[in-house]
């Protein structure tokens, strides 16, 4: 295939199926889909191809005027990288693109965007390991938990309310489930405020629950969006069904086990975004 490589970016809150989709896409002929800048080969992580933007996530959130420079500096040579990799379709999926979507759109107006969403209750449940080291420290950890060097590093770049936010003052005393409810709502706010600037033909919504329940048709629609030719390799479905990174223990309990106060806190913080994304508030009487 000749001409400019097809570029795409993916964004979501984390813990919303990004790694499975990234793995499946990378099995496609001529496609390389990174995950947070890194190549992966199924369960096996590969090398960084693009720099991780863990800290830049927070920098761009605190000062949106930095986003264009961050994208130019660290994502400014996507086409050249695709050529080096020998692929015609090249993308990267990362939660930390949320504060940079306007800058990405300005730099790559022809790029396509995958938007991942997942029910906020499930995100909060799965966002942080309650005990033990967290291999995928997406969310804020429980108060007082001892963190590894990597967990501390990732937490530096994790979004927290700006000083002007009404929650900023209370933030240090908020329980971790409330912090993760805010993280889910604010990350989605950034994404959904930004995606109107992307033409509908260039963006594709992947709703976690429907996507994985609707396989293989949902994956076929994704392939159509990216204009991938032919049939998917046989291994893609098993890649999508492999629950890579899924923690089977150590999570916070399911919302059905939350206290009325926790349900109320979630509804107050994340309720408006739950409604905006079409998710139902549960166990909430107010």
């Amino acid at each position: 295939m000749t001409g400019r490589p097809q570029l795409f970016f993916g964004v979501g809150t984390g813990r919303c199926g990004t790694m499975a989709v990234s793995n499946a896409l990378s099995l496609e002929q001529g496609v390389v889909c990174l995950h947070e800048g890194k190549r992966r080969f199924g369960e096996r992580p590969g090398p960084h191809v693009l720099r991780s933007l863990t800290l830049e996530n927070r920098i761009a959130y605190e000062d949106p005027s930095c986003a264009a420079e961050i994208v130019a500096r660290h994502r400014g040579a996507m086409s050249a990288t695709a050529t080096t990799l020998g692929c015609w379709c090249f993308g990267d999926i990362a939660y930390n693109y949320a504060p940079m979507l306007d800058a990405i759109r300005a730099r790559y107006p022809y790029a396509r965007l995958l938007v991942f969403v997942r029910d906020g209750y499930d995100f909060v449940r799965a966002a942080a390991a309650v005990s033990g080291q967290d291999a995928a420290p997406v969310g804020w950890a429980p108060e007082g938990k001892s963190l590894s060097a990597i967990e501390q590093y990732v937490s530096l770049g994790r979004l927290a309310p700006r000083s002007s936010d009404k929650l900023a003052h209370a933030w240090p005393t908020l329980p971790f489930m409330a912090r993760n409810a805010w993280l889910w709502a604010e990350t989605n706010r950034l994404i959904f405020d930004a995606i109107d600037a992307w033409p509908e033909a260039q963006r594709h919504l992947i709703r976690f629950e429907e996507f994985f329940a609707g396989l293989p048709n949902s994956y076929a629609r994704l392939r159509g969006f990216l204009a991938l030719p032919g049939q998917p390799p046989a291994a893609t479905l098993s890649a999508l069904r492999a629950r890579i990174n899924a923690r089977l223990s150590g999570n916070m309990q399911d919302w059905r086990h939350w206290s009325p106060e926790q349900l109320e806190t979630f509804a107050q913080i994340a309720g408006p975004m739950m409604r905006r994304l079409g998710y139902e508030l549960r166990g909430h009487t107010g």
Partner: protein
Amino acid sequence: MTGSIALDQRLRELFARIISREAADSLTVDSTTDDVAGWDSTSFVAMILAIEQEFDIEVSALEALRLQSVSGILEMLREKGCAG
């Protein structure tokens, strides 16, 4: 580096202790986490903690975001009155 000689030396010693002597010897004012071997996500937080201890300062999470380059560290130390 372009801090004072004493500041440069203290910073180099921190890099030698936390990362490696090779990393410390290779430092210039333009060095960043992208080009200093071993200055990665694992050593990053240890460097911040060492800087806090060495210069008796507190580094906030937002300030820490700037410490991905030697120039960023020197700038912060100057702002906190540690440049002497």
